[in-house]
């Protein structure tokens, strides 16, 4: 299994605050992995480092062996890494299909000349774009709402549209920041099935930031735990779950010994 | 290259630069105070400055018409005119804020900026309209007050007119007054609180709206004072003369660090000196190829360069872009 994403000794500081402290991370191709940790642990900061929004003070990040540091976010997207945001950041006044089309921008091979003359090449490519956008909408289950304004979509649909839009750039690695936030368990389940399908059918690798433990345990091949900017545990979901440091990070120091097995999954 | 000449005119140029600089500083204060509180460029400030100048000229012309101008002490007259100009400009600034900016609070930043540009243009022609009807002329000249025009020599090569002295003294007094107000009074503290964090300030019981109005009042008054002094110094005013000095004063505010009051003062002085030197030396240094006409480009180029390379200015802090 090739290593798709690799981070070594990444540190990020904001003035006096150390958001990430020398974190190592590896993600193998074809996996679904999760990053978890209490609020403020540095998870989104980690994503921002991967996608070029933040430049770390120390450390390296590489995708398929290509160093990512110093590249702009749009360049990183063109390489095949795409992300969603913790707070939904859709283009509200554009329709669902247009949002996806924008996501596809880095794959468009048309030149200004083609646009101005609307030559056959433009017409063909545009049709291909629209068809592909329609397909992606079907994949995330929004085909029927393609021409609705993004801001008018219900919350769950907006989350899925964000994923659809991210898929537009044809990524190999999808970074999802709390994709199930605000969803019911049923909706979250459906989303996870979607992710599994994506990994299987579109040879994607998915990295999640999640707070919903059920989701994390069910769908992840591998879980990494951050707390105060440091990696405190990593491994299979069941192993991480039992790690006393992890439990302490979430729930604080306890006076009683917890059970070693959770009652049921 | 006549070095003796170059060095010889240096002190005079320095002095002229200071006078100019103080005026820019006064105008720049209006821009910087409003920006500090609202993060908004009050484009119309250049017209608030001009209105001060016009109030000044109208009062003086009226006094002259009734024969009082020569009878009273010029310094008393100037003081009265200055206060009236400050009052008029201050009130105008508060009105403009109420009418054209307050309804737009909370909208994307470009919207109030466009509104401000609109106010600026409107005021230019509004002054023209008023003066066309009132006096059938809008290019007005400040009546001469002989005492003010007396030049006396400081040294062999430098001389200064009384009116320039007046400009310097008045500016210093006002800068000092503003500094005291902002840093040593309760109201000043309230203004600074609103500038830091509006939400927190209102939670502390400060009326944000009132502080904003007050900021406009004070900034406008500074601009109005600068207008009167401008009229006294340069004599000629028309409704459109605010634009260029306004733009330069804004440059000064940015140069010193927008939102920062000492920065505005510093920026004004620096810009005034730079401009005076450009005006005097540019022609001499380039053998007449580029003369004093280019001093405006000089100021604009400084503006462009700072905004590109060091937008926080000399004394300013970096405004962090929200991710």
């Amino acid at each position, binding site marked *: 299994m090739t290593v798709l994403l690799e981070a070594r000794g990444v540190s990020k500081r904001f003035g006096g605050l150390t958001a990430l402290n020398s974190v190592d991370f590896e993600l193998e191709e074809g996996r679904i992995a999760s990053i978890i940790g209490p609020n403020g642990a540095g998870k989104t900061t980690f994503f921002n480092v991967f996608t070029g929004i933040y430049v770390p003070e120390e450390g390296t990040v590489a995708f398929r062996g290509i160093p990512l540091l110093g590249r702009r976010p749009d360049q990183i997207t063109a390489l095949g890494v795409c992300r969603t945001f913790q707070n939904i950041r859709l283009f509200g006044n554009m329709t669902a299909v247009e949002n996806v089309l924008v996501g596809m921008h880095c794959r468009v091979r048309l030149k200004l000349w083609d646009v101005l003359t609307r030559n056959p090449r433009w017409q063909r490519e545009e049709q291909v774009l629209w068809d592909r956008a329609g397909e992606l909408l079907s994949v995330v289950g929004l085909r029927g709402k393609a021409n609705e304004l993004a801001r008018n979509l219900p919350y769950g649909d907006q989350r899925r549209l964000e994923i659809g839009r*991210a898929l537009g*750039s044809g990524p190999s690695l999808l970074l999802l920041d709390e994709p199930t936030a605000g969803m019911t368990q049923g909706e979250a389940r459906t989303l996870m099935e979607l992710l599994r399908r994506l990994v299987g059918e579109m040879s994607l690798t998915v990295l999640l930031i999640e707070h919903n433990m059920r989701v994390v345990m069910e769908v992840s091949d591998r879980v990494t735990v951050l707390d105060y900017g440091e990696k405190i545990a990593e491994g299979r979901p069941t192993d991480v779950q039992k790690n006393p440091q992890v439990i302490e990070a979430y729930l604080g120091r306890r006076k009683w010994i917890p059970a070693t097995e959770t009652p049921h999954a | 290259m006549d070095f003796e000449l170059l060095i010889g005119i240096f002190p005079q140029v320095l002095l002229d630069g200071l006078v100019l600089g103080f005026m820019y500083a006064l105008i720049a204060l209006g821009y910087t105070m409003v920006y500090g509180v609202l993060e908004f460029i009050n484009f119309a400030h250049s017209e608030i400055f001009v209105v001060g100048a016009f109030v000044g000229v109208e009062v003086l012309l009226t006094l002259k018409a009734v024969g009082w101008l020569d009878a009273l002490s010029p310094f008393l007259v100037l003081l009265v005119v200055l206060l009236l100009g400050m009052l008029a400009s201050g009130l105008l600034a508060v009105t403009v804020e109420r009418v054209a900016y307050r*309804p737009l609070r909370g909208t994307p930043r*470009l919207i109030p900026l466009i509104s401000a*540009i609109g106010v600026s243009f409107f005021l230019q*022609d509004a002054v023209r*309209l008023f003066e*066309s009807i009132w006096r059938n002329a809008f290019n007005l000249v400040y009546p001469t007050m002989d005492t003010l025009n007396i030049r006396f020599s400081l040294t062999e090569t430098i001389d200064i007119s009384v009116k320039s002295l007046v400009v310097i003294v008045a500016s210093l007094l006002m800068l000092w007054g503003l500094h005291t107000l902002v840093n040593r009074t309760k109201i000043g503290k309230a203004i600074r609180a609103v500038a830091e964090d509006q939400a927190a300030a209102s939670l502390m019981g400060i009326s944000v709206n009132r502080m904003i109005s007050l900021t406009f009042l004070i900034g406008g008054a500074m601009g109005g004072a600068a207008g009167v002094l401008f009229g006294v110094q340069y004599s000629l005013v028309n409704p459109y003369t605010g634009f260029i000095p306004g733009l330069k004063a804004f440059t000064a505010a940015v140069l010193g660090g927008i939102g920062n009051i000492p920065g505005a003062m510093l920026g004004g002085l620096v810009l005034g000196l730079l401009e005076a030197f450009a005006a005097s030396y540019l022609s001499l240094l380039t053998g007449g190829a580029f003369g004093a006409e280019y001093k405006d480009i000089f100021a604009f180029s400084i503006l462009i360069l700072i905004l590109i390379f060091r937008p926080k200015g000399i004394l300013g802090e970096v405004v962090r872009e929200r991710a």
Partner: protein
Amino acid sequence: MIRRILDHPVWATVLVGALLAVTFYGVSRFPRSIVVFMLFQCSILLLYFARMPGWLKGLLTVGTLAVLMPVLGSINGYYLEIAIQIGIFVALALGLNIVVGLAGLLDLGYVAFFAVGAYSWAIFGSPQANLIFGGSFFPLPQGWFFIFLLVAVAATAITGLLLGLPVLRLHGDYLAIVTLGFGEVIRVLANNLDKPINFTNGPKGITPISRPPIFFEPVLRALGIDPNPNVVYPLYLYFLVLVIVGVTVLVNRRVENSHIGRAWEAIREDQTAAIAMGVPMVRMKLLAFACGASFAGAVGVLFSAKQVFINPESFTFMESIGVLAMVILGGMGSIPGAILGATVVTVLNLQVLKGLSLWLNELRNAGIEILGYNLANLPTQLEPAKYERMVFGLILVLMMIFRPQGILPARRRQRELGEG
């Protein structure tokens, strides 16, 4: 009620057709009446709102602009002049619309591109270039006018790129101020580049500037029409303006409905998200700048040729704000909005304000008394025609407060995804 009539194809056609015919007749009967001419212009406006088959609307539009208007222009040359001015400002507004409306960049120095285009032809299409290069090779033959349309497009696009590169990283207000500064720099340069080498002839301006050749002269003669330049040129320039505006509208629409237009809208909505989705922000913004600038360059050349004389007075900050007011009045990002805005503002300045001036003068001369005040005493300095800034200022403030989306807001989507 008018709305309902306009929605009904048959009645709309009847109404608009009738209005056009009536007002057309009215103008030909009363060529001096500004009011009647404005009614004619309003009829054309109604044509836009009428719902009728596309081919019919196109036919009527072409017919009105290509036949009715020139005829009226032959009756009263002033109307043709107004139409040409409107056309020039429509092209400028469409150009600025790309920068401000589509890409969301507040450019306060747009007139600089207009100046670059205008001066490029002015210098080489007049003896001015001889002062720069020596000899008497210039002005270039008239036919070069058409080549210079393209030269200006290239020159202004490059200028736009040069300006944009350092500046586009700045946010909103700072970008606005820097572009304002740039516009002023260009104006001062135009005013002062008459020494050491005389590029622009400073405030004295450049004249005479060549006009495009009347290449269709043989056709005119064959039709028995006497090709008198004084008669031909106004109509010739009018049609040239129509063509340029037509091309501008075409380019605008094509770019708007493409991946480029979508990228611009995304940047406008949420810049960070757009970049994260792979949109190269700086490149897209530069493209918007260069595109918008090139329109100004092309009409600049036309402007030079039409005026035969240009000087820096035509390229001030006021013109930049004027074009901005047109875009905002009509609706940012909206092509019909830009056209409407440019037309309304130009009409306000050229017809309404000037008409007020003339009317006031007549009142003064007539010496009527109202409430004991003899109107002959109206201050002579009071000249409504000069109050363009007040018009621009009011438009900007009122629109921002009451209708920031403009009169004809950008109408959404042209293309939709069909059923799967």
